[in-house]
């Protein structure tokens, strides 16, 4: 009798060890949740061969570092048709506004905050039209206009620098190239207008009748 008891314990013991071994075996591959998995598998991330370079090589970019993150944004000055501004803005505004000179910027109507808060010189530098200016009067390059926007829109700026606001240019891969504020928002009228949806599914209407 004690012999058979001994054997039973023995078998149970072996089974226990086997069970432990088998349950521990997969521990390295299975995770409690996707976030655990992401964290574990990205610990020794060494980069990948997929790159965004071929998708962004056709645009000129500027490298910026904001909130500790470095990425590329498209150059702006080359996009502005009449840059540099001082080609015209070499005389005082009164002279430029005389009726004999061809009109410019006649279609710009400022619709950005209210007039108490903003007018042209809140952003434009009256002394040197080739630059923008910050609230404290420092010069800001047209290529780095996000620095101007970030003065007020700090929350959006933080999200944009991180990548939660705005868009990546063509590719998800690194090096990261993101659109800058003025690529989507017109700085003189930054909000989006409402419009009709691009698509209406007439088939769905029929099916649901």
């Amino acid at each position: 009798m004690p012999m058979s008891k001994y054997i039973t314990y023995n078998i149970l013991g072996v089974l226990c060890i086997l069970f432990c071994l088998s349950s521990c075996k997969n521990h390295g591959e299975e995770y409690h949740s996707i976030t655990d998995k992401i964290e574990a598998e990205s610990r020794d991330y060494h980069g990948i061969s997929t790159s965004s370079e071929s998708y962004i090589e056709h645009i000129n970019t500027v490298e910026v570092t904001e909130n500790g993150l470095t990425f590329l944004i498209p150059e702006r000055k080359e996009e502005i048709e009449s840059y540099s501004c001082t080609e015209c803005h070499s005389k005082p505004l009164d002279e430029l506004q005389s009726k004999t000179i061809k009109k410019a910027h006649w279609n710009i109507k400022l619709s950005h905050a209210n007039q108490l808060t903003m007018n042209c010189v809140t952003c434009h530098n009256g002394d040197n039209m080739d630059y923008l200016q910050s609230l404290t009067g420092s010069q800001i390059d047209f290529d780095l206009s996000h620095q101007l926007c970030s003065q007020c829109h700090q929350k959006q700026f933080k999200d944009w620098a991180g990548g939660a606001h705005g868009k990546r240019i063509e590719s998800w891969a690194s090096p990261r190239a993101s659109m800058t504020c003025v690529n989507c928002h017109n700085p003189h009228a930054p909000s989006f207008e409402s419009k009709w949806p691009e698509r209406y599914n007439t088939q769905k209407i029929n099916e649901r009748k």
Partner: protein
Amino acid sequence: MSDTNKKWFSLNLNSKHKQTSGSCGCGKTSGGCNSHKPKNEELNEQEFFDAAVDASIGEERRKDGFDQVFDVKMSRRSAFKKLTASLLIGAGAVNTSCSFIAGDETKEKAQIDWEEQFKGNYKLMNNDEKKATVDRLVRSYQLRTGKTISMSSQNAEEDVLFGYAFNISKCQGYMDCVNACVEENNQDRSSQMQYIRIHEMKDGKGFNFNEADDNYYHEVPAEGHFYMGTQCFHCDNPPCVDVCPVQATWREDDGLVVIDYDWCVGCRYCMAACPYDGRRFNWSKPEVPENEINKNQHYLGNRLRKKGVMEKCTFCVQRSRKGKNPACVEACPTGARIFGNLLDPNSTIRWVLENKKVFRLKEDLGTEPKFWYFMD
């Protein structure tokens, strides 16, 4: 498909035998595609098909279910008939490919059809086999339509796990994403199949899908509403994959849940298993106008499907594996859609997950979708 002057190209890979004469697999009605040479061959395709079917399941065609299985008279004669039926199908292909009369293209097409018919599951193929089937499909399309497409069999890259984030405070319901998706993925235009749904929801009611409208047509954003999109969430623990009886759908190493359209039997179990309504079924032969076909394709992605198979969002595998953003991400004018590599600690998607308050739909099901929602 016997309408003359039809401008659509209809995908017609495996059903060419059922065609009535006058049109062919390539959709052309006037000569030049070489798929019909009835007078020159010993048996034309239709006769041959009928003969083969008659020989193999002649009796069964008129019986159903139980009877087919149990009420089989297996005389010596019918046993021979059945044996020869399979030989006949083989011989048909050999016949066409060895015939001196049939054109080279007809032979090649028969050869391709034969190899495509008996190829294995894409999931189990090695790289050479994948390349071979892709080459066959490209050549087959070329023979049938005279047009050249490019099709990729690019595999998942190591250290890549695709993830997606959707900003519900940014989406304005413009539906540019839906448009881009339909065009990119060669979706059926006649049934207006769409992978993406944009739901218009009432402010203050939360995610109430019962009261949401996913087919609105008025100026957007509408007052007192917010918008959110759904599509395939590419779950890390996908219930659709578990239920597939033929393993025609699986999770790739980069997290994409994909379908082998040629292996799918169209049982729609996966459609029932998906808690997010992410899968779509081809009820009819998908039709895409010839000039709108996206010729940049992937075997697991936007290549032309056929009737009776499942399809769904693949995060645009033909784009994403090459480093491009999916079409919906690129089309969105509001920047509500973020896509990237979850395993790259410096990616923008990781920043969103780590810095925004994110949530997923039906998290309690344990499906682990790789599609997060967040707000500003």
